[in-house]
């Protein structure tokens, strides 16, 4: 899978006093991503590191089609499963089961397709009978497990993971890593954002360092992390 990701403008801040009367317009243009050009290939886990506010989430959102690039071009081949925030579509009042169907629909599945995968999803999440309880009763770990399970049940061609692997206990983290690895071997492309350097080193074939919207380093994870750390001093 190949894609090019370019510049983008975000956050023009406008204030209108009263519509018909006087307008006081304050405009600040802010480039969240500036001249970023990347290619991510099939069967590759690509890591993204950088400080908060560097533009990592923005980059992921542009790929996930949540945001449209102001300039430049994004091309994505295949089905995308974004994990930008666990339980994005979850509604607290609904049960785990109902939320599975809702979330699958958000990811673009029909009811029947979800039915076929249902048992598998519940099994991976290890929620057992809790699946029939409203998710406002869940712990954050259970939330994470359900979210990850639904998103990855789809066997996506592109998986986008934004800093969520931190939640959940050791055994779950292990399961996630195994699943990501399985996808990778099957030819999917995975974009991984994390603040946990060991995870990046362990899981990624290539990585990049994004700082204030600019691509500062790209290549082997170890080297990129080194450059990133040096940049912090």
């Amino acid at each position, binding site marked *: 899978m190949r894609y090019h990701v370019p510049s983008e403008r975000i*956050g023009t801040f406008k204030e209108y006093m009263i519509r018909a009367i006087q307008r006081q317009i304050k405009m600040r243009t802010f480039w969240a991503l500036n001249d970023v050009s990347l290619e991510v290939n099939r069967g590759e886990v690509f890591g993204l590191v950088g400080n908060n506010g560097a533009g990592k989430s923005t980059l992921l959102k542009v790929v996930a089609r949540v945001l449209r690039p102001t300039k430049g071009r*994004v091309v*994505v081949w*295949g089905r995308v499963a974004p994990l930008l925030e666990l339980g994005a579509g979850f*509604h607290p009042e*609904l049960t785990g089961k*109902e939320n599975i169907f809702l979330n699958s*629909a*958000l990811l673009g*599945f029909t009811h029947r397709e979800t039915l076929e995968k249902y048992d598998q999803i519940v099994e991976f999440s290890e929620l057992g009978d809790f699946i029939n309880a409203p998710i406002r009763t869940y712990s954050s770990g259970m939330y994470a497990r359900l979210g990850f399970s639904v998103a990855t049940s789809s066997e996506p061609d592109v998986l986008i993971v934004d800093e969520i692997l931190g939640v959940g206990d050791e055994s779950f983290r292990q399961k996630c890593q195994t699943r990501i690895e399985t996808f990778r071997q099957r030819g999917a492309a995975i974009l991984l954002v994390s603040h946990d350097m060991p995870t990046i080193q362990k899981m990624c074939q290539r990585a990049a360092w994004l700082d204030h919207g600019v691509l500062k380093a790209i290549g082997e994870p170890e080297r990129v992390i080194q450059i990133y750390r040096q940049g912090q001093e």
Partner: protein
Amino acid sequence: MQSTSVYDSANKVPHALQELREALGHRHLIFQLVRRDILTRYKRSFLGVAWTMLNPLGIMVVMSFVFSQIFSAVHSYPAFLLTGLVAWNFFSQSTTAAMYSLVWGGGLLQRIYIPRASFGISAIGSGLVNLLLAFVPLVIVMVATGVPIRITAVFMPVSLLFLVCFSLGLGLAISTLAIYFPDVAEMYQIILLAWMYLTPIIYPETAIPKQYQTVLHCNPMYYLIQLWRLPLYDGRWPAWSDIWPAAAIAFGMLVVGWFIFTSKSDEFAYRV
């Protein structure tokens, strides 16, 4: 991989068309969203589904008590009132819901791609479910007060279609406005209130002096409500002169609203 779908941001398809295609493609999602709205509304409420029916019924009882002496010429005022009220509630609730779901549902927009029109369409869908439920007390009242339900009632689906189109178009248009100007949401409630009084729902058209009746005729909802009440309450087949203004208004609003919405829908994720 099985799927060969490609996303290319440089692909320049006209927005209105693309949104339509996407919305159709995501119809399973829209169904789930409607289901979510219905389920969450009733999960924690004691009376549950009954409340959808009790609400218009309650209003009708109060209004009838107050007005039926004034409008004694109307054959079965409660039925007259309720017929109009049921349609009005659908319109006002679904357009308001369309607006609020887009403005407050922003979190979802920022996490995953879903066609923006999903919010509006699912709001209309939920409104439809409530409307169908409201038919139960309506029919009961009509029967109880001796208003015959004639064969002309089979025309209702057409009237409903026009109502749905108009509501969707308006809902999409005001949603767009509300994203940019949040106070639109408040203003709309007040506008709705005035609008209802400008539509002959509580009062029959005949109660208004002739010279002011033209004001009523400038109100688009006038035609839609008339077309709604004629086959159901009056038991008449609507004439062509009743039908074409309603059709024009309904489809016109839908097209206009759709275009306004889709021309701006790319920017929503930034604004919410």
